[in-house]
């Protein structure tokens, strides 16, 4: 938690996390269908980079910067890095639960955890859903109850 609550504000291209959410949705869909521990483990590593270093340092962000961004004509819109970084942390939590579920052979835990991560990534990609807006305050309220 400490890494995402730093006070300094960093601005990033807002279209980057949205593109990354599309790739994340595809990878998580693949994980759900194949029930592969390797696919979800890979996505967990991507989430871990996004949640610690920042979403602008993931492999998906690299694809965005090198292939997608030069072709975009829409004006640059920046956003605070903290909301997408927080979403990566939530994604990491679900992915880790799924990895543990698969490792100990409980496929129900795997399927449910991947399903939640997929739902969040899909909502972000398709509807610009902001996970931090919906869950952060509730988490704070629970923690400081």
């Amino acid at each position: 938690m400490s890494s995402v609550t730093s006070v300094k504000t960093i601005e990033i291209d807002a279209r980057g996390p949205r593109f990354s959410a599309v790739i994340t949705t595809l990878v998580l869909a693949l994980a759900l269908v194949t029930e592969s521990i390797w696919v979800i483990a890979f996505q967990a590593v991507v989430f871990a980079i996004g949640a610690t270093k920042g979403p602008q340092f993931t492999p998906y962000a690299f694809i965005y910067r090198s292939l997608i961004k030069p072709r975009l004509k829409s004006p640059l819109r920046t956003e605070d890095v903290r909301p997408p970084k927080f979403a990566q942390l939530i994604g990491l939590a679900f992915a880790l639960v799924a990895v543990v579920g698969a490792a100990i052979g409980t496929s129900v835990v795997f399927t449910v955890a991947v399903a939640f991560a997929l739902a969040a990534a899909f909502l972000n990609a398709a509807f610009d859903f902001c996970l931090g807006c919906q869950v952060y305050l509730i988490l704070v309220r629970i923690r400081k109850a």
Partner: protein
Amino acid sequence: MKSLLPLLAVLAAASVFGIWFRRTRGEFRRRKTVDGPRLTPDQIGIALGERVTMVQFSSAFCSPCRATRVLLEQMVQTMPDVEYVHIDAESHLELVRQLNILSTPTTLFLNRDGTEVGRAMGTPKRSQVLTAVAAVQ
């Protein structure tokens, strides 16, 4: 390749939720009970507006909070009987609990006495703000 059923179920459920979510963001919801909670200038940190006070709650991990703030700060300049105040939810948890605020941005619309008439969750459109302000008597 295992079953496609979980994938289709997740995408269908998330789509239904997403469409509902998009539709309801920014919508002004009037309180069903006659008297909402009453806020004092002490609690919100500014004097109440002559007719309406808009109180926006924001948090750190919230992109639409900024857009909402920009819109409301700009709109309030042309509305002499309306005041606007921005509150960081995390540092006002007492108030957040009392008002039962669950997500950000949430904007409360208070009448001249400081009583909540209704609220909007998510970034409202300009027209939705005008509707909400007009709904306060």
